[in-house]
């Protein structure tokens, strides 16, 4: 390890080179004006095929019923809930980047915030699909909302599953609003740029008539701050509440007090891995390497090693307290995780989440695109298995050995999971063609010479 002298006296530039404001416009608006490349169509059709597998499996589930899935007593939560928690987790990176890093004044977020927010919205859409399917009566979702039904009965406000309904829908709404508020000035810029009449009508409609007025910017910046201030506890609350689904119960392996922060850390962990993975392609495809720089990716990798270590801490803590607490069921569940029939899943999880990300301690690996891409993928595999391990191992080994069971997913389980990935990437591919993937106005504010020399 060489101790190369870094320059600490200067802040790293957010944008490499010094593009002018007009160049920023041109770079970011370019994908919206061009006809998609062949590569885009190929990837899009792959995504769409995956999505159609999902549509088929969902259709069959609707038509035939939940019997098509692998869930049964005692493992009545299977891929559906695993996928739900996984996708909600993916969705956490977006708001974290746009809200928390905004509050922390991390200016490097500028290049990646818009994209991450969009990912949040799409991931939450994928997530929302699963509880709905899981109910088995997808056409009766209104029973989830507190309305006075014919029996005069209300929803159960003390149930964590209802908290989920509120948390996920609030999260989706607020993320959407946050995203849209950020888009307004950019849509106005696009409105003033475009020569296409139809596009102009659409941009005018959605930019609401924004005039870049400083009398507006003033309130706008305040609103952004307020939204960030609310979104920060919101993003923590969402995965906290998801963790309550498990932790308020008395199932060994589920009922443990570290679940809320542990789930949040895991969610941020997997979300960053996903953002990093997709951004690697986006910056390549749209010539954004000077805006989404290697430094930014390196910082994301640092966040991943931090959150990955938090997750590792939680695994260790669970194990330690399971032993220390002296409860024989707890002790058994954790031994069973590591050595039982699902040990392969447990060790996949540990190696992908805790061991592989440790490679990011090395600067070379942190800054190598192929290496970080592979580690990012393993992190998401690991985080998916984390939810699988938590849900399946605990349910399949209950208090009574006579009611133990085994869970095997079916074709339809896998198909819907693939379909959710298809939906996610389809939406992302459409997004990168119709909206600016980087915030134009925020970026202009941080390029060199973008602000008065003294203020």
């Amino acid at each position, binding site marked *: 390890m060489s101790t190369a002298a870094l320059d600490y006296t200067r802040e790293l530039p957010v944008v490499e080179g010094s593009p002018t404001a007009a160049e920023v*416009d041109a770079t970011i608006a370019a994908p919206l004006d061009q006809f998609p490349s062949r590569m885009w169509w190929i990837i899009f059709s792959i995504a769409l095929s995956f999505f159609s597998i999902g549509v088929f499996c969902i259709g069959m589930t609707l038509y035939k019923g939940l019997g098509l899935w692998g869930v049964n007593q005692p493992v009545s939560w299977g891929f559906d809930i695993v996928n739900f928690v996984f996708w909600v987790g993916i969705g956490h990176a977006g708001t974290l980047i746009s809200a928390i890093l905004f509050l922390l004044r991390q200016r490097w977020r500028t290049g990646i915030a818009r994209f991450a927010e969009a990912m949040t919205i799409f991931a939450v859409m994928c997530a929302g699909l699963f509880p709905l399917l899981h109910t088995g009566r997808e056409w009766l979702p209104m029973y989830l909302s507190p309305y006075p039904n014919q029996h005069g009965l209300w929803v159960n*406000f*003390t149930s964590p599953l209802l908290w989920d309904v509120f948390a996920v829908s609030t999260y989706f709404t607020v993320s959407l*609003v946050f995203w849209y508020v950020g888009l307004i000035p950019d849509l106005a810029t696009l409105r*003033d740029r475009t020569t296409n009449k139809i596009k102009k009508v659409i941009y*005018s409609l959605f930019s609401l008539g924004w005039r*870049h007025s*400083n009398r507006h910017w003033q309130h706008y910046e305040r609103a952004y701050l307020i939204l960030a201030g609310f979104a920060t506890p919101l993003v923590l609350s969402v995965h906290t509440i998801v963790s309550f689904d498990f932790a308020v119960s008395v199932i060994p392996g589920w009922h443990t007090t570290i679940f809320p922060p542990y789930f949040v850390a895991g969610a941020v962990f997997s979300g960053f891995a996903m953002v990093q993975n997709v951004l690697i392609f986006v910056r390549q495809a749209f010539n954004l390497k000077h805006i989404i720089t290697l430094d930014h990716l390196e910082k994301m990798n640092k966040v991943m090693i931090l959150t990955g270590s938090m997750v590792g801490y939680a695994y260790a803590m669970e194990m330690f307290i399971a032993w220390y607490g002296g409860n024989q069921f707890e002790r058994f569940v954790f031994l069973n995780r590591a050595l039982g029939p699902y040990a392969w899943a447990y060790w996949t999880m540990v190696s992908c989440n805790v061991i592989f990300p440790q490679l990011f301690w090395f600067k070379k690996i942190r800054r190598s695109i192929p290496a970080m891409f592979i580690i990012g993928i393993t992190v998401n595999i690991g985080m998916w298995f984390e939810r699988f391990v938590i849900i399946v191992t605990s349910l399949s080994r209950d208090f009574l050995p006579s009611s133990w069971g085994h869970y095997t997913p079916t074709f339809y389980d896998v198909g819907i999971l693939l379909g959710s990935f298809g939906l996610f990437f389809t939406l992302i591919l459409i997004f990168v063609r119709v909206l600016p993937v980087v915030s134009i106005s925020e970026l202009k504010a941080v390029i060199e010479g973008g*602000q*008065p020399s003294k203020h």
Partner: protein
Amino acid sequence: MNEKHLFAVTALFDTPDEIIHAAHETTSAGYTRFDINTPYPVHGMDKAMGLKQSRLGVFALVFGLLGATSSVLFMTWVTLIDYPLVIGGKPFWSWPAFVPVAFEITVLLASVLSVVTMIVLYFKFPNNSHPLHDTPYMKKVSSNKFGICIQADDPTFNQKAVEEFLAKVGGKEIGPVFFDLEDLDHGQHIFDPKFIGVLALTAILVSGGTYFTFNKLLYMEPFSWMSAQAKLKAQRPSDLFTDGIGMRRPVEGTVARGFLPYPFKGKPDEAAKNLVNPLLPTKEVIDRGKTKFLTYCSPCHGNFARGDSRLAGQFPNPPTLHSDKVRNWPDGSIYHVITEGQNVMPSYASQISRDDRWAIIQYIRVLQRAHNAKESDLK
């Protein structure tokens, strides 16, 4: 377009430093109705323009408090007043469990309503017919220029003076912006047939859609495998049997467990001789007897078994149970009458369980004793 109305005079600048300087100058020159348009928020502009701090935070606080209190009050009302339900052995008002929902509603209201307030109240958006729209000025401040726009309705506005002033502070491309004549037409448009047409269409679509959704759509079951299964259902016809009835009668002579048939059917004397009250006159038994007596017997025999019922006169008057005959009857005889009926009185065998009949008898004995109390009872 012969009569042009001036909206403002605009000028463009190239750098943030210049625009900050221009804003300073404009404020100190005493103009109040002016605006700065920049492609992104420029630091220090609020101060240069002399703007007061945004009060949006106050709105957010109010909306947040509104969300918190309304959700907590609502959940309190639901769980304490409207439909109290014991869930998981917890108290009705389990405040820790309200925290998640209250928090979400707080965040939802505070953030969404703050944005709506900003857009509607502060920006007065949507508004795509502002005079600045579609001007070359707008196109440039949208991209990379910094513009200032001094409006004609400023009290000290004088087109020439303003143009000179802007040139002095270094503005380029100084020029006037006019109102769009169509937008100045402030006539009544409420009775415009187009508007009314849209209104009517909206009304029809919304009401029709709502009606369909709430009355039809919600009751359509896309698939009914679970509720429409090929199985026998209680009290439903079935094609499986020739008589078309789904429910089957038990085989003749079937005796339900614990329900041996009454052995003294039509034999009151044997009943009187053989039947013995299995219940002791304890407080619980008498209380139970009282309840059942008041439910089943009192409508005819009266609350105190005097035969003075509410139905008196409508039927042949039921007898008092305080007659010597009844008082001297053994318990078995009364039991027999309740079970089999007598004269107009029908059988109560299907309404009153066996034990309850014996309890009623104990209560009747109490009533009889009370009506013929002895001196010794008072001690």
